[in-house]
């Protein structure tokens, strides 16, 4: 077998040394009922060519060559070719978690750069080395806020990604935590501040708000943070569309930022692997889950990096750790790092502006459901979402997400996303079908 670097001759020599006569002898001590002596009911091993063929065929059964206006937490951005050039290098792809700093400075340095750029983007002082994704970063941030405040109640905006809220529910269900939803204003689509005022209280650990929110709307976080802080709660800023940070001022009053970096050169890949991240004010760092890289020196006095503050983590603190997370999304975070490097200060701004312009072009053509400011997604009011989407599919266009699936109250509303990849012709086609 091509992945097994051994000839039968070598197996023989090794068995001889061990003093075994057959490979089976190596586990002859396993009780009879424990050994599986049958043949697994899986097909025989396939050649590389057949494997390529199989997955090529499966890919062919999915959408191919469609334009798409889906967003809703997963965005269709161009992936600079440098990203795969870098992450395909065996030295990054096939290396382990950088516990052994002396032969892992490549990974460590790039993570330190990742942390730094995330701080620059979010306005926070510390960022971790990644979380599984945005949907787990948000509940981890909520639990972090609970540890910081010693409180057991979190408020989450209904305009936070619905699947993130589902994960939050799963994570908190057995922790004696009360999760309260804060509704959105039916006109603006933004969080309903008045309603929020009524539910934030002195037992609240965190107010979690996403901006741009699930409807693409930009939230005014300042008053929300003020309200949270007045009650001794933390403000958690969630995001799913990282490109928005190219143009949006990060809320200076947030305490924790928890987001998803899929937009940064991470392919949609049917929902993963993505890279989540949590950033926060320095004073909360001891409650931050996940790995952290810090700067230090080596014995010769050269700058060096290493994993640090491990006393927050499971391998040191076990049941007292801030989280059970171990393996994270390092390689995917590296994709984001390369993306941020390639676009840089000017590029990320221009990219964000192109997204804004594209979305506003299409937004201008359609009847928008909400009035608030929006970045590259917005909600359009349709007569019949399904009819429109079916018509679009015939034109090789995947339309937007009918919101009724997650928001029964928004029946007939469709969430549409435009990015730098959206072509005017396709947007005009969408407008046409909405008009039809």
């Amino acid at each position, binding site marked *: 077998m091509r992945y097994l670097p051994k000839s039968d001759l070598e197996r023989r020599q090794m068995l001889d040394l061990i003093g075994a006569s057959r*490979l089976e002898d190596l586990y002859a001590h396993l009780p009879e009922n424990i050994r599986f002596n049958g043949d*697994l009911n899986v097909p025989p091993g396939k050649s590389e060519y057949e494997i390529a063929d199989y997955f090529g065929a499966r890919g062919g*059964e999915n959408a191919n060559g469609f334009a798409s206006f889906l967003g809703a937490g997963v965005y269709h951005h161009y992936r600079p070719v440098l990203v795969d050039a870098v992450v395909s290098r065996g030295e990054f792809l096939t290396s382990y978690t950088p516990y052994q700093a002396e032969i892992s400075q490549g990974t460590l340095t790039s993570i330190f750069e990742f942390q730094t750029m995330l701080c620059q983007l979010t306005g926070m002082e510390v960022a971790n080395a990644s979380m599984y994704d945005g949907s787990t970063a948000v509940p981890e941030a909520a639990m972090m806020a609970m540890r910081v405040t010693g409180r057991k109640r979190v408020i989450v905006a209904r305009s936070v990604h619905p699947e993130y809220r589902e994960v939050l529910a799963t994570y908190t269900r057995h922790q004696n935590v009360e999760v309260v939803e804060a509704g959105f204003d039916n006109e603006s689509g933004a969080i309903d501040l008045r309603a929020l005022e009524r539910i934030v209280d002195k037992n609240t650990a965190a107010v979690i708000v996403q901006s741009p929110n699930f409807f693409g709307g930009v939230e005014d976080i300042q008053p929300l943070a003020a309200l949270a802080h007045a009650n001794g709660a933390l403000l958690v800023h969630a995001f799913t569309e990282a490109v928005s940070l190219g143009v949006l001022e990060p809320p200076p009053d947030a305490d924790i930022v928890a987001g998803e970096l899929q937009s940064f050169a991470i392919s949609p890949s049917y929902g*993963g692997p993505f890279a989540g991240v949590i950033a926060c004010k320095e004073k909360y760092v001891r409650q931050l889950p996940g790995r952290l890289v*810090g*700067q230090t020196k080596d014995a010769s006095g050269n700058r060096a990096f290493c994993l640090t503050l491990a006393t927050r983590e499971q391998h040191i603190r076990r049941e007292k750790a801030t*989280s059970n997370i171990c*393996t*994270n999304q390092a390689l995917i975070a590296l994709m984001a790092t390369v993306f941020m490097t390639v676009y840089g200060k000017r590029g990320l701004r221009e990219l964000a502006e192109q997204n804004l312009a594209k979305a506003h072009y299409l937004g201008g053509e359609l009847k928008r459901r909400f009035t608030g400011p929006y970045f590259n997604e917005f909600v359009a009011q349709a007569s019949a979402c399904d009819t429109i989407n079916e018509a679009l599919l015939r034109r090789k266009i995947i339309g937007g997400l009918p919101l009724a699936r997650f928001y029964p109250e928004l029946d007939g509303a469709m969430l549409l996303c435009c990015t730098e990849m959206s072509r005017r012709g396709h947007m005009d086609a969408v407008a046409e079908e909405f008009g039809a």
Partner: protein
Amino acid sequence: MIKKVRQHPNQNEQLLFEISSPGKTGYQLPELDVPPVDPSQALGAAHTRAEIEGFPEVSEVDAIRHFTRLSTWNYSIDLGMYPLGSCTMKYNPRINEQVARVEGLAWAHPYQPESLAQGAMEIIAELEGALAEITGMDAVTLQPAAGAHGELTGILLIRAALEAQGNPRQKVIVPDSAHGTNPATVRMAGYETVNVASNEHGMLDPEALAKAVDESVAALMVTNPNTLGVFEERITEVAHILHAKGAMVYMDGANMNALAGISRPGDYGIDVMHLNLHKTFSTPHGGGGPGSGAVAVRRHLEPFLPAPRLRRAGDTWTWDYHRPQSIGRVRAFYGNFGVLVRALAFIMAHGKGIKLATQDALLNANYLRKLIEPHYDIAAQAPSMHECVFSDRRQAARGVHTGSIAKRLIDYGFHPYTVSFPLIVEGAMMIEPTETESKRELDLFADALISIAKEIEENPQIVLDAPHSTRTSRVDEVTAARKPVLRWQP
């Protein structure tokens, strides 16, 4: 004698922020084909940032050199053996990287119509089936993003099932040899950890266990083979003890590389287990992730699996969101799909032959053990499966501990083994070669460890001060933690 490496010049490189120069660019966007929009008008001046302060400005050339140079500071599987016990660092087939990038897969949006996602769903179904077959379990969820996430999912499944019976109970038993994620998981699932000690062979002691199990215990988390690389030979009995009290057995399947094709946990009383697809199933570790923590369950836990579940509806796959007993989602969408593609590709390549891979993994570990055992103390007097754990006892007597031996291995051209884990072994040296190491590489590794043992006899200082050959000498981790510098500042 150092046989495996020589020294060579290795490029220095500053941080991105230090090589940045205002006005350099590494990107170009296509001409905008719609009217531009003024951000401060569209979003409000207060919401519009001036610039991303400190963000790098480099060209494409700078970028590729930067990351290429950085990469050369790393060790990797492509360069050599990674004897990290418990980590199963095996060869990552390149075809898997290629198929994960097939356009229809890499660019599939999780919300695209099911009619246009059948290929992706078929892959998920195939992998679920293959993993169920390999573990001997009845159903598999692929939603968890890594092993620890799988553990949480698994314990929540047990909790939900017990809750459905009326009482979630309070405790989960965790052996002292367990990986840190186990107790951390227990807490996240709202349970309390009860530690039990291993016996002198590093195994669970059913008698002691029986005393610890009562109606307050929800489950036992057992790693099998355990973290000493020893198979829990009395696992059937152990499961019996738990089941008799209405509790369940969770198996940490991080060490499934010892079992695939030769032993199926579903056949001997395991209720639920996770698999690390980034270990046993060869998906690349990528410097820390991504992974996938597939969870396999017996039939009685199936109703509680995270929603949605795949369901066959006539000729097509559909996502079933109506799962009233489900623990809910543990992650958005359907898991780390791209990792799943790679794992399935790996399974397809081996097919039934995965048994030989497992046998080779055992062969390699036992071969190494045989070569090394005369020079280091083995941790447990029990047969090794896919890894062998030594103690630094003999060397510590001369003042050299496992950590230094590990660093000295670097000078010999190897990545260190796993250091100081499991906690129950004094000065643990945990060695897992995996099946993808050649005899030649193993011989060099044993040779290096033996040579280091000799150095410890003759000149321990050279080991204590290691590594000597790396571009970065011993890194001061204490200062890093004492005065954390976690981001670059001008």
